[in-house]
């Protein structure tokens, strides 16, 4: 009865419907909330994969909501780029929904239905941002993701409420800037549909209002992705959030924002406008360089594992933004590939942190003592993730870095090359330091109960299995990078570049 043409809508609608079912189910039986969430995520993941395969075989999909053709109605446009991002988002949503069970039971025992309701809405929001072809629809979904994230972060420990509030202020400024930019586009063209805007805008490229619109949207999106110099809210917000929240938000939020930036730059505006009329791209690459170097240096000064990772996220955002703004083939390819790789690497790292928090009740370096003996599987996964963050072949992280380096050479932007290599070296120091901490018993433990704590004390299977899948995924992606590039990534390069 349901035709194959309807599959794209299920990616978004199933988690959306599940959110309300979960909130109702929570009133009767709390234990149904998490399985319902897993079920919804798996359907969504299945639909996303089916859509990706369809896009690879048959090209771009257009789905008209309400049956109204664009620009009158809202449409979904799924091409290679967002089909890939959809799979990433629904995969991360699926993995974390399995993983979160124990950790939510420990951290938010009396708020389980609310947590999973917001969790599903958050994933819906991220999927909706990715799939939509309408500039205003994107804003509405941006706000859903934002509101859910504020709440999910604010229920964490310590300074969580304050960092949640700061994030709320910055996030609202970002979303409002985006909305203002869309308003400027609307007043100049009368359309909200991205493809329609793409057609209408070239005749207006000289106009100051369009220029300001582009700037406003860019600044709004940069605020959302914590690009330098608008990164201040991120480290605290992600550090104090509950483990399951940061596992979901840290890999996805920044990457989806990067996706939105690429979409705005190339699908609403055009490469010609972005790189020729708007000749700022060298400055943006310099900002990216500062983000990479600054993020790495701040990460070096941290004594807290999770906080260190949050600074690395800022550096990784620099990778992707810089790669896109290198304005050449290899740079953009590297950036898009890095969206995939970095979301997997960050997911892997935060899953490890979540397990450490679950077992040792903290994420300070002191909590890491002799973890290699206590949790061999977790730490093996961590090692793969760390190698990937550093960029050692054949892990996934190497290949995107390689493309980014090629792009930097093509663009003659040597400072970006230096920043990439510098950050890889810093990552070597950072992760080997952690491996050292985790190999030996921690200093405070050395004298006390050193004997009792050496036994194997592995994480529960519901946390360990997702982590191992992700870690294996890092290797698989690394091995199949060539295939991914031929089938997906090379189509994401905009025409006229």
């Amino acid at each position, binding site marked *: 009865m349901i035709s194959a043409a309807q599959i794209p*809508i299920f990616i978004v609608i199933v988690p959306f419907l599940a959110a309300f*079912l979960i909130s*109702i189910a929570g*009133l009767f039986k709390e234990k149904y909330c998490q399985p319902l969430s897993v079920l919804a995520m798996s359907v969504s993941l299945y639909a996303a994969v089916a859509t990706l395969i369809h896009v690879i075989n048959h090209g771009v999909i257009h789905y008209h909501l309400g*049956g109204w053709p664009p620009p009158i109605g809202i449409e979904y446009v799924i091409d290679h780029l967002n089909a890939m991002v959809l799979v990433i988002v629904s995969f991360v949503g699926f993995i974390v929904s399995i993983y979160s069970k124990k950790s939510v039971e420990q951290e938010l025992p009396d708020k389980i239905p609310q947590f999973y309701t*917001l969790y599903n809405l958050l994933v819906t929001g991220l999927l909706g941002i990715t799939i939509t072809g309408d500039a205003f629809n994107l804003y509405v979904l941006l706000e859903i993701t934002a509101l859910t994230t504020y709440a999910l972060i604010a229920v964490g420990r310590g300074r969580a409420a304050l960092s949640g509030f700061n994030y709320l202020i910055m996030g609202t400024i970002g979303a409002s800037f985006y909305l203002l930019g869309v308003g400027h586009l609307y007043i*100049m063209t009368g359309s909200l549909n991205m493809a329609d805007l793409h057609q209408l805008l070239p005749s207006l490229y000289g106009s100051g*209002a369009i220029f*300001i*619109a582009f700037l406003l949207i860019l600044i709004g999106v940069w605020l959302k992705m914590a690009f330098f110099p608008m990164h201040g809210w991120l480290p605290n917000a992600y550090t104090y959030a509950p483990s399951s929240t940061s596992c979901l938000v840290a890999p996805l939020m920044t990457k989806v924002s990067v996706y939105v930036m690429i979409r705005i730059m190339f699908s609403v505006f055009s490469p010609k406008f972005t790189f020729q009329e708007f000749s700022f791209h060298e400055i943006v690459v310099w900002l990216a360089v500062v983000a990479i170097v600054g993020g790495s240096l701040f990460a070096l000064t941290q004594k807290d594992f999770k906080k260190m990772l949050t600074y690395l996220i800022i550096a990784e955002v620099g990778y992707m933004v810089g790669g896109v703004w290198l304005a050449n083939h290899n740079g953009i390819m590297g950036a898009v590939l890095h969206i995939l790789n970095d979301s997997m690497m960050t997911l892997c790292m935060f899953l490890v942190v979540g397990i450490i928090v679950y077992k040792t009740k903290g994420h300070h370096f002191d909590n890491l003592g002799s973890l290699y003996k206590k949790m061999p599987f977790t730490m093996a996964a961590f090692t793969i993730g760390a190698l990937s963050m550093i960029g050692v072949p054949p892990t996934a992280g190497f290949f995107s870095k390689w493309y980014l380096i090629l792009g930097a050479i093509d663009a003659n932007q040597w400072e970006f090359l230096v920043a990439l290599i510098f950050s890889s070296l810093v990552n070597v120091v950072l992760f080997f330091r952690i491996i050292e901490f985790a190999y030996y018993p921690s200093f405070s433990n050395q004298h006390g109960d050193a004997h009792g704590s050496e036994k194997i004390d592995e994480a529960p299977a519901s946390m360990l299995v997702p982590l191992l899948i992700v870690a294996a995924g890092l290797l698989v992606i690394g091995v199949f990078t060539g295939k991914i590039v031929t089938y997906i990534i090379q189509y994401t390069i905009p025409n006229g570049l």
Partner: protein
Amino acid sequence: MKAIGLITVFSLGMALFYATIDFPPWADPQSPASLHVSPHYIQETMKETDVSNVVTSVLADYRGFDTMFETSVIFTAGIAVILILRKYSKKEDEKFLPEVSEEAEPDIIIQTVTRIIVPFIQLFALYVIAHGHHSPGGGFQGGVILGASFILLAISFNLKAMLRRISERKDILLGGIGLLIYSGIGALCVLLGANFLNYKVLHLIIPEASQVEARSYGILGVEIGVAIAVMAIMIAIYANLSSDGKYDKGL
């Protein structure tokens, strides 16, 4: 900090002033915004949806997908407030709570007037919801008025008086049901073989309705869902904020 703030604000202001130079003059019927997409809505709404209030038809049909997420933004806010504030245990420390000096005397005039006026407010709310097709109104406005009638009860009596009429459980249930009505109508369209939220296929299950009338009924259906959800969530947000998540006496 202040200086940086001022500089940022002024550079933003300058940029926006600069952008206004290129804007078409205010209220110009020949501006691009008035010529490109919107004429279609004004000219075709009667023919395509049978709804004379163009704002309603655009809101619930042409851009109905936006509105569905808009409703879920409210729902999100309600659940978020519950997640942040609700305290199920009673042993929360209250060291920073302002001391309530003495209990406010219940005022007989206010309570009597409230008792009389609440049914009329709710009746008006139903009118606003149902008449959204032909006059200003619709699900959001009607839902807020409905919610306000309950909040009025809570203010003039106390929170308990409101919770006796609509308990916390029922409230969350209603919020979920409201959104399930909206997205359920959308999903029903998919089951009947059309795109999501394409109400015209509802003529297959609504007796004696043409495709255009089916759109009109579909809009009414989602407006009712919106109204229920908005009402429930407004009440939930008020109850949590006013009682600090404890659902006791309230303000």
